[in-house]
């Protein structure tokens, strides 16, 4: 990613040709960028249209109707569902980190018999499709009266998440073994090594895992649909948005888009605040074995 400029001393071509080069260099990239931006642009514009305009495929709002965002709050209990979403995403992120970090540490740094086999179990749990577990879990949760509440979404995250454990283990293994070994030889307990040596050195990695699990919960549709889909206490936004589309607001595209944008906004803010963490975290899920 270092800037590669032409070596000094080269002849500068005439301005017309330089512009042509620039155009040739950027034209394909700009064309692709337009493809990527079109759906979002249309969504934003639709959120400012009148119902008639939105339903007839208008391309530009006239007049701009700014009240759609306010109308969302009367068309659906947006505030309550937002709170549910924040609770689900926030608490499950805390749970995932608190419960997954020690497991990842045990897999990366402690020496015990069966460690490799246990790691395979983690990998298998990671690959397991949700459909295979959701039927008995639904029965179980409805027995103990949890269906219709946020508990089935939050509580399991406090018992470790296979994907997060896998990622954290990969990160922990990149820390030089001498550091933890030195602390161990000096008689520090494992918990102390984890808290004072490992965690301070892997903060960016833990942040990445936290971001991933927050976004997973924020975007999650399947689990909230199963466990809170018909609840009186409200849904998470992902489910509520689809119900807005179905209930008395069919074809009210401008409301759906306004609500979608409000749902999307925190994600975008997070992304721009932590872009580096994201891109590096994603690269790590793929490239390093």
């Amino acid at each position, binding site marked *: *990613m270092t*800037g590669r400029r032409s070596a000094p001393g080269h002849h500068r071509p005439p301005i017309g040709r330089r512009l042509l080069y620039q155009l040739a*260099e950027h034209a*394909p*990239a700009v064309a*692709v*960028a337009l493809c*990527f931006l079109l*759906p*979002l642009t*249309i*969504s934003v514009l*639709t959120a400012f249209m009148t119902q008639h305009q939105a*339903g007839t*495929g*208008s391309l530009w709002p006239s007049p701009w109707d700014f009240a759609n965002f306010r109308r969302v709050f009367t068309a659906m209990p947006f505030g309550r569902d937002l709170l549910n979403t924040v609770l689900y995403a926030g608490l499950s992120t805390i749970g995932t980190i608190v*419960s*997954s970090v*020690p*497991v990842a540490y*045990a897999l990366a740094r402690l*020496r*015990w018999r069966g460690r490799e086999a*246990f790691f395979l179990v983690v990998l298998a749990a990671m*690959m*397991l*499709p*949700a*459909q*295979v*577990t959701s*039927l*008995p*879990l639904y*029965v179980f949760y409805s027995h103990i009266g949890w269906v219709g509440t946020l508990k089935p979404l939050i509580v399991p995250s406090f*018992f470790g998440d296979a994907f997060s454990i896998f990622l954290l283990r990969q990160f922990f293994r990149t820390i030089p073994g001498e550091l933890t070994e030195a*602390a*161990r030889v*000096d*008689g*520090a307990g*494992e918990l*102390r090594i984890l808290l004072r040596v490992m965690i*301070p*050195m892997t903060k960016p990695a833990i942040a990445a895992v936290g971001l991933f699990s927050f976004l997973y919960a924020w*975007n999650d*549709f399947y689990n909230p649909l199963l466990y809170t889909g018909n609840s009186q206490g409200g849904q998470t936004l992902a489910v509520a948005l*689809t119900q807005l*589309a*179905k209930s008395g607001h*069919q074809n009210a595209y401008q409301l759906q*888009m306004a609500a979608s944008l409000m*749902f*999307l906004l925190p*994600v975008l803010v997070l992304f721009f605040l932590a872009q580096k963490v994201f*891109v590096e975290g*994603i*690269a790590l899920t*793929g*490239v390093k074995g």
Partner: protein
Amino acid sequence: MATTVARAGDAVSGARGRSAQRTRRHPSKTRWWVVLAFLSPFVIGLATFVLYPVAATLYYSLTNFQAGSYRPVRFVGLNNYRTLFTRSDNFWIAVRNTVWMVVVMVPLRTAWAMLTAWVITRVKRGRNVYRTLYFLPSMVPPVAAALSFIVLLNPVGPLNRLMGLVGIDGPGWFSDPAWSKPSLVLMALWAAGNTMVIFSAAMLDVPRELYEAADLDGAGAFRKFRSITLPAISPVIYFSLLTGMIYAFQYFTEAFVVSGSANVEASSNELLGYPARSLLFYSTELYQQGFSYFKTGYASAMAWLLFLAIFAATVVFIRVSRRFVHYAGGDR
């Protein structure tokens, strides 16, 4: 980095001062109860939320269990499986649609991610801006993305309007059975930015000198791509196809939202798969049977078949691709 090391050093020396009396234990093996303490929450979770449900699904699949019903549960052997294979046309339609997604969507998405990554590597200045723009849509929650595409691809909507301006008569997209799955593929391409990031990182990692040497040897663009770029990015292709395949087998959210919301007539769960069952995928059919009709035993049989199918496909994929993937570090 230096500061973290220093801080770690402080912690180490602090620990030394306090536990100087303690006998030094063998450094190579951790005591079993320490390991257990670190693992215990996850072990409990594994048993409760993974092992028990997997076993219970297998058991349910051999019964006529209906969640919420007071009817006594009866063991029915392989009846559920027999019904699936011989007496359910929904099942086979769902299988066909899902296989279509695996075979069409997954390779196209990988190819698109590769192409857009290549476009980015051709740009010298402003590369990061493009990368951010291409990546952005993959951050959009699937539900919001599906709702956006419903608006965009409305038969009288903006995209058909735009195409009309240049004289193209746009299709019915999500409301036309022939176009509904391709429309979902379009949506998947739009959100391929996360894979694109991995591809562009791998492409930029290729040492410049390799291309320069190939230039001296008079290699053409295609030859350079095949002999230099392709081996370098083959692990990413492998990763993208494998994870994409596992994901496509479970394809649910976008299909559920689109077939439930794109059409006024399809507002009830009865009509999942609208239009004309062209969007009835394996997971949506499983949801319908298990959580709309509460045919728990029957849906459990479907879940186990899905599990086996994913497992088998993964094993086959790993076997077949082994000889095509090149790792820079040599054989693993």
